[in-house]
């Protein structure tokens, strides 16, 4: 059977620093879908993103990552990126001495894509930052916008967004959401959309601007619960993550 999913995780087990953080993740994201990933601090959301992107700091001990129908579990990051993966970091590192504009130009020329970097930058209110060193002295919100700016230049088919809304003020939240919608082709008819996203967030605000298709709760190294984003969010708000754990327990007992 040919998988329809753009990204598929099969029984994924992941270790960080010798500790097992993810214990059997199964997840499929289809073309044109936006999935939201909730979960308490330390539950392994960033670890999951790292595993999908191929960060050498995390180790897949079991299971598979299938992207565009191909098993990419052992592939280096930049090969996955060449295939159309993109990542917005929760905590991007400083790249000293490298200007943001310079990096964007290098990315564009590597992709052999015509990009009006200045224009893309102004779409995320970052036009004044092209001469700044990448992530050096950026405020929390600037850092998030810079991540999205880089993704907009890359324009990948599948974006991993690790808390793009954390620390972003109300006005900029709309800017960030706009950028995400642009990345996910929100203006295209749903049936025609091909680009997808996995979005990690702690806040419901974001979901007012973005129409997500599905949400999952990561708890105790597993997807404890999946469903409609608004319903899942409501559950978490009312009962906390504990309730999700119970849900998982019930399923495991069954």
């Amino acid at each position, binding site marked *: 059977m040919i998988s329809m999913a753009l990204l598929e995780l099969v029984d994924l087990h992941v270790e960080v620093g010798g500790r097992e953080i993810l214990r059997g993740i199964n997840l499929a994201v289809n073309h044109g879908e936006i999935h939201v990933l909730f979960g308490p601090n330390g539950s392994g959301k960033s670890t999951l993103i790292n595993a999908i992107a191929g960060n050498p*700091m995390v180790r897949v001990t079991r299971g598979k990552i299938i992207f565009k129908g191909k098993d990419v579990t052992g592939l280096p*990051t930049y090969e996955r*990126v060449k295939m159309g993966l993109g990542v917005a*970091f929760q905590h*991007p590192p400083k*790249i*000293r001495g490298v200007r943001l504009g310079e*990096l964007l130009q290098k990315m564009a020329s590597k992709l052999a894509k015509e990009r009006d970097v200045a224009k893309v930058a102004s779409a995320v209110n970052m036009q004044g930052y092209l001469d700044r060193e990448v992530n050096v002295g950026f405020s929390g919100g600037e850092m998030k916008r810079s991540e999205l700016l880089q993704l907009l230049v890359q324009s990948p088919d599948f974006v991993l967004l690790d808390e793009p809304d954390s620390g972003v003020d109300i006005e900029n939240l709309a800017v960030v959401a706009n950028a995400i919608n642009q990345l996910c082709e929100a203006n295209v008819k749903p049936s025609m959309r091909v680009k997808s996203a996995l979005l990690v967030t702690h806040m419901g605000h974001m979901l007012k601007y973005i129409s997500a298709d599905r949400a999952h709760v990561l708890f105790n190294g597993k997807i404890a619960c999946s469903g409609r984003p608004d319903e899942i969010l409501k559950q978490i708000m009312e009962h906390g993550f504990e309730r999700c754990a119970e849900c998982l327990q019930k399923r495991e007992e069954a």
Partner: protein
Amino acid sequence: MRLEELRRKAREALAKPPAVGPDLDVSTFRLEAEKPREGLGGEVLERARMVGLEPSERDRAGTYLQLDHYALIEKAAAGGLEVMSISKALESYDWLADYYWRAVGVDSDKFTALAELKRTEGYFMRAKRGVKVDFPVQACLLIKTPKIAQNVHNIIVVEEDAELHVITGCATSKAAEGLHIGVSEFYVKRGGRLTFTMIHGWSEGIDVRPRTGVVVEEDASFTNIYVNLNPVKTFQSMPRVLLQGRNAKANLTSVIAASGKSFFDVGGAVYLKAEETGAEIVSRVVAKDEAEVVSRGLIAAERDRVKGHLECRGIILSPTSAVVAIPELEARARDVELSHEAAVGRIAEEEIYYLATRGFSEEEATSIIIRGFMDVDVKGLPPMLVAQIRRALDLTAKSL
């Protein structure tokens, strides 16, 4: 009288090993070189371009060009500026004796001694009182004949309230062997400003021993930018800057890309000898292959209300290369502010990963990070020099 005394001291120091860095048997180098028949050309010219020589002399306030032991061009193209060979200058100006071997001791070691006893030219530059020379003056010292010792003595005088920007390049043809001794004495008078950018493109067979002394008077400033592009055999240099007058400032910045079997012992020492003086020493070192770099820095505070900061960062690219950082701070007064930071290590994996998510291979990411690492602050230099330095650094990052 004084000259005889200098020569006597030099003779006595001819066997004196250097205070730091590897010793050399100077007798293995030839002290004579034939006067070159044709001018510059071929590979040497190419290398000269690489270290900043603008052969057309466009946008340059003056040019001094020396090949082996001979001055080929000595020209000043701006009012209030003088550029000439040191021999001509010493003949022309009796007062130059007051600047000759005053900032560097003739008996410091065998190299200074040899530079006095077997001097093979060097340049003299002078910006007259109040003159601001906008375009940089270029100096280029080249070695073409194998196995020679090029022993130059340079003097730069920036008079009261004058401003001078100098870019000097030193290069050899790739295959050359030899010794380069460069004695440099710089004097920046009250309110004056000197920026000195040096780009080196040596080769694997060359031993290099610059001996630099700088005296900076009240309200004057000295900026030294040093960029090394190519491997050498051995290199040892520790410019000594004396901030003599109140509110004198010094900034020493160096970028060393060491590859092959190069050995570098490179640093700078600034002595804060007057109140309200300030110094900053910044060094960036990248070592690969079997190269070894000793990176030194010394700031000595001898008066109150002075400030100094020393920063040394190193990247190690291979397990057989070495970086040794030796930052030193000396406080001999109470009201001083001295600090240093040093960090040596490999490139952070997190940064490589970050750039990988932007589509760059490990090799490409490494080169981007190294280029960024070498991107030192060159504020206060004329734009064309900044561009020149950028080009040199681009070349270096690519070659690593």
